[in-house]
C-alpha cells in the first residue's frame, strides 16, 4: 500500500457507509409525505386539536421524529465525524438507532391512530431508547478538542435537551396509562419547548455555523457572539421549561425574550456569512432557509403572546405551525436538498468514481416542492386561525404534492449512487 493510499483510507474512514445516513434521510423525506397525507386525511381532527391521544399528536410526531429528528441524526452521524476528524467508534449502533427509531415511530403512530395505548407506550419507549443511544454515540465525538468548537457546543447543548425531551416524552406516554404526572398539558408544553427549541433548534443553529459558510463559501462566523447566542438561548430554554412546568407567565415571556435575542445574534452572524461568501446565488434552498429564519422569531413572538393571553384561543396551533412547520421543516428541507447531493458527491469522490455534483439539480422538482411547501403552510395557518378544516385539507393535498416532488428529487439524487455504487465498509 502506498503512503498516499494509507492516508486516503484514514480520511475516508470518517465517512460512514452511504446506506447509513441515506436511510435516515429517506425516512425524513418519506415522513414529510406521511405528514401531509395525515393532515389531508385527518383535517377535522387537526383543526379541533386540544391535546390528548389524537391524529394531531401523530402528525406532530411524524414531523418531529420521522422528519426532523431523523434528519438531525443522519446529518450528525455523517457530518460531525468529517468535521471533527474523528470517526465514530462503530457503525452498528447507527444502524440500531435507525431500526429503533423506525419501530418506535411505527408503534407510536399505530398506537395514536388506532387508539391502542400499549402499542403507543411501547413505541414511545423505543423512540426514547433510540434517542438515548444516539446521544451516547455522538457525545464521544463532541468531546474532542480542536476544530468546530462552536458547532460542537451547540450540538452538546442540543444533546442535553434531547435527553430531557426523550425522558419527558416517555413519561408523557406512560402517563396515558399511569396518570402519574400532575399536569399532562404543562409537561407536554415543556416537552415541546425542549424538543423544538432545545434539541432540534439548537442543533439546527449549531449546524448552521458549519453548513451556511460551507454553502456560501465564507469564513466561519465569529465564535464569541455565537457562544453568547447559545448562552442566551439556553437561558431561554431553561426559563421556558420552568415556566411551562410551574405555569408561570413571567418565565414563559422571559423565555420568548431570550429566544428573540439569541435569534437576533444568530441571524446577524448568518447574514454576515452570506454577505461575505464567495458564492452569492444559493438557489431555492436558501429561499426556504430564509423563510425559516423569518418563522423562527415569529414563533417566539407568538409563543410570548400566547403566554400572556393576547393571541386568542387558536394561537396555540399557530405557534406550533410556525415553530415546527415554518422554522424547522422549512430549514430542514432547505438544507437537506443541499446535503443530499453533497453526501452523494463525497462518497463518489471518496470511491474515486467520476466527478460529481455538489449543487442540487432537478430544479423543477425543487421548485414544485418549495411553492407547495409555502402554500401548504399558509393554508395550515388559515386553518389554525379560523378552525376551517377545508383549509387544513387543502394544505394536506398541496403539501403532499410538494412532498412527492421532494421524494422524486431525493430518488433522482440517490440514483447517482446506484449507477456508480461505492463499496460499503
Amino acid at each position, binding site marked *: 500500500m502506498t503512503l*498516499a493510499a494509507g*492516508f*486516503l483510507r484514514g480520511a475516508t474512514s470518517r465517512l460512514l457507509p452511504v446506506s447509513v445516513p441515506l436511510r435516515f434521510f429517506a425516512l425524513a423525506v418519506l415522513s414529510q409525505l406521511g405528514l401531509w397525507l395525515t393532515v389531508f386525511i385527518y383535517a377535522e381532527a387537526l383543526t379541533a386539536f386540544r391535546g390528548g391521544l389524537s391524529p394531531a399528536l401523530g402528525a406532530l410526531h411524524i414531523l418531529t421524529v420521522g422528519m426532523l429528528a431523523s434528519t438531525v441524526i443522519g446529518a450528525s452521524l455523517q457530518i460531525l465525524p*468529517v468535521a471533527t476528524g474523528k470517526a465514530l467508534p462503530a457503525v452498528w449502533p447507527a444502524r440500531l438507532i435507525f431500526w429503533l427509531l423506525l419501530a418506535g415511530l411505527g408503534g407510536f403512530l399505530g398506537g395514536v391512530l388506532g387508539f391502542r395505548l400499549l402499542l403507543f407506550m411501547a413505541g414511545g419507549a423505543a423512540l426514547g431508547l433510540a434517542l438515548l443511544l444516539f446521544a451516547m454515540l455522538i457525545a464521544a465525538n463532541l468531546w474532542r478538542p480542536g*476544530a468546530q468548537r462552536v458547532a460542537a457546543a451547540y450540538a452538546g447543548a442540543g444533546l442535553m435537551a434531547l435527553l430531557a425531551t426523550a425522558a419527558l416524552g416517555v413519561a408523557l406516554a406512560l402517563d396515558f396509562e399511569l396518570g402519574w404526572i400532575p399536569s399532562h398539558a404543562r409537561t407536554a408544553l415543556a416537552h415541546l419547548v425542549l424538543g423544538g427549541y432545545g434539541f432540534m433548534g439548537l442543533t439546527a443553529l449549531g449546524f448552521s455555523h458549519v453548513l451556511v459558510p*460551507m454553502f456560501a463559501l*465564507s469564513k*466561519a462566523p465569529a465564535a464569541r457572539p455565537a457562544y453568547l447566542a447559545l448562552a442566551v438561548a439556553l437561558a431561554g430554554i431553561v426559563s421556558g421549561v420552568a415556566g411551562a412546568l410551574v405555569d408561570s407567565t413571567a418565565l414563559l415571556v422571559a423565555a420568548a425574550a431570550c429566544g428573540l435575542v439569541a435569534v437576533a445574534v444568530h441571524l446577524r452572524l448568518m447574514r454576515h456569512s452570506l454577505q461575505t461568501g*464567495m458564492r452569492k446565488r444559493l438557489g431555492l434552498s436558501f429561499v426556504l432557509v430564509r423563510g425559516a429564519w423569518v418563522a423562527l422569531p415569529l414563533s417566539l413572538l407568538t409563543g410570548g403572546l400566547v403566554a400572556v393571553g393576547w393571541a386568542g384561543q387558536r394561537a396555540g396551533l399557530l405557534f406550533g405551525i410556525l415553530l415546527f412547520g415554518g422554522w424547522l421543516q422549512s430549514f430542514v428541507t432547505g438544507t437537506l436538498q443541499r446535503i443530499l447531493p453533497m453526501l452523494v458527491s463525497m462518497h463518489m469522490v471518496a470511491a474515486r468514481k467520476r*466527478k460529481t455534483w455538489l449543487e442540487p439539480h432537478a430544479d423543477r422538482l425543487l421548485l414544485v416542492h418549495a411553492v407547495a411547501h409555502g402554500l401548504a403552510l399558509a393554508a395550515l395557518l388559515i386553518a389554525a386561525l379560523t378552525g376551517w378544516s377545508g383549509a387544513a385539507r387543502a394544505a394536506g393535498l398541496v403539501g403532499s404534492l410538494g412532498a412527492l416532488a421532494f421524494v422524486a428529487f431525493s430518488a433522482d439524487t440517490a440514483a447517482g449512487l446506484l449507477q456508480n455504487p461505492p463499496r460499503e465498509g
Partner: protein
Amino acid sequence: MSERRWQAADGLHLDVRGLPCPEPMVEILGAIDRGDAGQAFIVHIDQEPLMLYPKLEERGWTHELLGSAGSGAGVRLSLRYSGV
C-alpha cells in the same frame, strides 16, 4: 508571505491546518480565484478535502494526494491548473 503561505523549491505552499470547516476550502478556492496561486501550489491540510474536489474540477484544477509531512501533520495535496 504569511506564516500560512511560503515559497519553496517545489513551489508555493499554503497551510490551512487547524482552521475550522469550511475555512480550508475557502482559503484554497480564494487563492485560486484571486490568482495568488498561479498555475500550481501545494496545500497542507488536516484531512483529505473530499468536498473541495468537485469545486476544483469546476475551475479546471486537478489534485494529487502526496501523503503526510509526518505523524499527525495532516495531508499534502498538489493542486495544478489544467484548463477548463
